[in-house]
């Protein structure tokens, strides 16, 4: 305690400048509406969705919500594409420098929009289970008579659709945020709906609620870190603009303790969202407990948003000081890859296993994110695109394997699946190979470009670790394939539910994208390497 006493008594008064009087008039910052139109459409549609919930009769809601959300995403995508043509080469910084809409932003936005359509269709599927994946009435206590009654009701909490749209809007802002405060608000806008959605599973509601509590408490804990980091950086630079922080690092008389303390805390908050080890502890529990389409949405889209944010913060805000922090993130990347690869080996639940796989993938992504060169940026973006599609499809397939109690996610229940349903087993095997990074899948090209970018930036030891980690990780994917193909099916094993056409379509598209990006990645690679972050 004496240290604290020392701290307090030793403090000397410092001259404090008086705050200036507020300006007499405040000029309105210019707003480029075409640039931010996709966000406005998504968030507006989410508000309309809330009104739908308020005023539409219950039986109409699901169709109305689905149509509204998909339509909104399509319109947003259309606006996005038309803006892509007219956007200046260096991007647009708008809303008083709060948002930066540039080439990487557009890539991330487009990916998020497409994947969210897929996730929404999975969420709306009511053929695999009567009433869908979501609970009919979340307020009913699990285990009661009413709960058993609602399990058979063909209804669901349709609030998931506006919630998903809000989360999507948050993710889009998060990727484009050019200052830390906007980023923080976006972080909360994307997280709060996800916390709620995690707790809405129709079956196994105790697990689902537990996942929500854990995700919420840890998420809030992590955002407190992020926020404290923000405050320290504000103290350092006098501003939370990323570019101001970068400039301040070049010349200020403030203590660099504030800079690096702030950076460390900020990065912890971001790494948590990207489920990078050792900040991954929530991932397996939440992935397992959440309703599977929500897991798919989280696994694919949150990862993209989080790494979009990490990429921008590191390269725009802290590019000038990379020498100091890079070594630390090396360590984090290695920890993440090792944790993911090693812990994944002994998992017995498919969803947990994929969760650990996502931790390992987060490590690979982090390698790309700390390259800080155009090659690293484009490689990481490409990896995100491939990973998003593969993950969405993986969870989509996991949601189809069911028995009388709902989803059969225990690995032993997957034994001999190839005999019962060759198509689903084959699809799953292909997706697992893609996650393992076997050639002719997008996963291979993704790893390849990330590793090459890292090599060209002198990170050979990291790449060696990464190659070894991916070799270790290949075993747990292999375990599932072995189980599906080389084991006898259990007597009372699960059946594969035939999903509706829409879900089938989503899974097909994702699998085809995974294959296509493995054979001809050039289209997307051209796209991801077409521009860099706007600096201002």
């Amino acid at each position, binding site marked *: 305690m004496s240290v604290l006493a020392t701290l307090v008594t030793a403090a000397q008064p410092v001259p404090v400048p008086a705050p200036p009087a507020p300006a007499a008039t405040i000029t309105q910052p210019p707003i480029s509406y075409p640039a931010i139109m996709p966000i406005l459409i998504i968030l507006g549609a989410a508000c309309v969705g809330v009104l739908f919930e308020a005023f539409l009769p219950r039986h109409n809601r699901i169709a109305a919500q689905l149509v509204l959300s998909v339509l909104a995403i399509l319109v947003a995508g259309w606006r996005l594409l038309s803006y892509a043509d007219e956007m200046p080469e260096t991007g647009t910084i708008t809303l008083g420098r709060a948002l930066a809409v540039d080439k990487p932003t557009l890539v991330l936005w487009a990916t998020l929009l497409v994947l969210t359509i897929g996730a929404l269709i999975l969420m709306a599927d009511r053929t695999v289970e009567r009433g869908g994946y979501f609970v009919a009435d979340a307020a009913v206590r699990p285990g009661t008579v009413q709960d058993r009654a609602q399990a058979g009701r063909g209804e669901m909490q349709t609030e998931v659709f506006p919630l998903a749209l809000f989360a999507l809007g948050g993710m889009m802002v998060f990727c484009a945020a050019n200052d830390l405060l906007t980023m923080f608000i976006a972080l909360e806008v994307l997280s709060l709906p996800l916390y709620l959605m995690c707790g809405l599973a129709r079956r196994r509601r105790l697990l689902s609620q537990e996942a929500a509590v854990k995700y919420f408490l840890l998420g809030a804990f992590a955002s407190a870190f992020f926020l404290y980091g923000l405050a320290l950086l504000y103290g350092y630079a006098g501003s939370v603009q990323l570019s101001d922080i970068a400039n301040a690092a070049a010349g200020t008389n403030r203590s660099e303790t504030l800079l690096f303390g702030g950076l460390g805390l900020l990065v912890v908050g971001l790494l948590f969202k990207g489920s990078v080890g050792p900040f991954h502890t929530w991932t397996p529990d939440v992935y397992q407990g959440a309703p599977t389409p929500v897991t798919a949405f989280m696994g694919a889209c949150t990862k993209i948003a989080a790494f979009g944010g990490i990429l921008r913060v590191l390269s725009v805000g802290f590019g000038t000081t990379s020498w100091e922090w890079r*070594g630390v993130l090396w360590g984090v990347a290695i920890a993440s890859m090792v944790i993911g690869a090693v812990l994944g080996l002994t998992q017995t639940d498919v969803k947990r296993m994929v969760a650990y796989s996502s931790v390992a993938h987060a490590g690979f992504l982090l390698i790309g994110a700390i390259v800080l060169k155009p090659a690293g940026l484009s490689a990481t973006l490409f990896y995100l695109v491939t990973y998003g599609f593969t993950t969405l499809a993986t969870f989509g397939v996991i949601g189809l394997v069911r028995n009388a109690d709902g989803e059969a996610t225990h690995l032993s229940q997957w034994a001999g699946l190839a005999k019962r349903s060759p198509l689903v087993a084959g699809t799953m095997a292909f997706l697992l190979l893609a996650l393992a990074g076997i050639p002719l899948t997008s996963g291979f090209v993704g790893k390849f470009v990330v590793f090459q970018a890292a090599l060209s930036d002198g990170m050979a030891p990291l790449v060696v670790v990464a190659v070894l980690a991916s070799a270790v990780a290949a075993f747990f994917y292999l375990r599932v394939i072995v189980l599906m193909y080389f084991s006898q099916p259990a007597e009372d094993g699960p059946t594969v539910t035939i999903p509706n056409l829409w879900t089938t379509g989503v899974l097909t598209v994702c699998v085809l994208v995974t294959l296509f990006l493995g054979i001809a990645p050039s289209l997307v690679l051209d796209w991801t390497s077409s521009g860099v972050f706007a600096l201002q």
Partner: protein
Amino acid sequence: MMNLSEGAESVVAASGSLGGAWLVVLLPAIGALVLLAGGKRTNAWGHLLGCATVIAAFVYGVVMFFASTGLDAGQRVQNLHIYDWIPVNALQVDFGFRVDPLSLTFVLLITGVGSLIHIYSIGYMAEDRDRRRFFGYLNLFVASMLVLVLGNSFVTLYLGWEGVGLASYLLIGWYQDRPSAATAAKKAFLMNRVGDVGLALAIFILFQQLGTTQYTEVFAAVGDGRLSSGTLLAVTILLLLGACGKSGQFPLQAWLPDAMEGPTPVSALIHAATMVTAGVYLIARSNPIYSASPDGRLIVVIIGAITLLIGCVIGCAYDDIKKVLAYSTVSQIGYMILAVGLGPIGYGLGILHLLTHGFFKAGLFLGAGSVMHAMNDEVDMRKFGGLWKKMRITFATFTCGYLALIGFPLLSGYWSKDAIIEAAFSQGGWRGWVFGGAAMLGVALTAFYMTRLMFMTFFGEKRWEKLKSTDGREFHPHEAPAVMTIPMIILAVGSLGAGAYLAINHTLVDWLSPTLGELSEAHDSPFSTPVLTTISIALMVIGVGLAWLLVGRKPVPVEKPERVSFPVRAARRDLYGNALNEVLVARPGTWLTRFLVFLDNRGVDGAVNGIAAVFGGGSGRLRRLQTGFVRSYALTMLAGSILVLAALLMVRFS
């Protein structure tokens, strides 16, 4: 990408029928796609489609071969650009083929032997409900293998490399109801991954140093001396690690014998004739790299020599006919690796032996398959005996393969193996003696275990008459149907004549010279060629004679002697009273055999299993950290944050 080359090579853009090389790959790929995606609808004609695509690919391969022979030597290395696979700023990976004598040779081997084995499989798999899927996997294998040999960059090679690994893995585990098959498949995948990591790292190093992985550019850069000798050595060792994994070389050989759990045509095609030779191909293909690194080559030679002896010795100890052949494969690939490790003097010889081996070993496996087919899938040679009367065609073709393998004068193996031995001796100094001696010793051992196999299977007492198979049926050995015997006969003809055709006048070596360089003449050898030949024939005769003494003269016990491997039993019975012989020959031999079997089962498997156990055990323990308590998760996060913060500040301020 065209005409970039310099140095020794000249590469031109592919044209004419060589420009259609993609067709060779596409045909089996389409076959695989149709068969695997088509489902039950294709059951009726699936096997025919599977054969047709491979035969068509073979025909086109022959067309390309003749088109290529019509060209000048300088025109024979052709590059076929297909499309830009991964084009990002600094990184250009083209997907393209390199059609040159080396890849054409492999195309002919793969599609030729592949066609025969596809046809054979129609008969062999006739009773399998999933025959269509089997052909789908086989087609997938052929397509991947062709990508492997035709690719014009290391990345394309890696693509095929993983593809054949996958197909091999699926086929080893074909009999899903046998736990041993699943284990064997897993083991194969596991050990191959070890090798693959080596290959991947080698590719990354090449890219990092040279900024490309195209053969043309890599070889040109190596020729210009742009790699330091340390880097070169690292690349050669990592490539060799890849080769060891795929080709079942020491210390990664243990998966190959287990891989015999797969159906016999698979053993013949993938685990004898083609896929397992990919390692030899890799080293031969990378010959400019190996030529530039004598130290790297020395390691290759050492690995080859060790493997060839290990394979021979262990081959003496097994009673399982397929395992003996598998260890024989390990040992023969050891010869090939030894040969390509010798440098310019040996690249062509390695490929020559690879081709002749492809013929006779595929033939031997098909023969073994035919025997098993006749004997209710029994593999224990102790239950065979006297089969030659019952299955004359099989016996005849098997004998051809056998004679070729042991190096009977003027048959295939004789030409290729003697050339390798001669090249090994010509290394001069201790190396010549050691490697040449190892190769010589291998000849005697090969003759011994193969003769033992012949005696136990085809001669002697009909032990099966008194026995029943494990499923309670009696044995009624019979000759296989024509669809199986005809491929065997064709391969037998190859075993007899291919060596002579390819070796006399250096036909093959000259043909390969645009890729592998001119064969340098052996010199510095302590023996002249006729002397060497005589010695090696003498050793072969000794091996055969010893086998006759130990196995052929006496009845073979049906039950494997308990807890004692065969040579001990043999030594006690047949060498009784001959104490000197026992002490000098049998005992050490027994110990050596036992030791090597032990090493193989415990040591190497143990190491691999040990690594797996370390990861698995670590994983199992670390898993417990995920306690399910939110507070402990928060603690992990806080600890992580403090570490990150402390590290950041430490880096900055220290």
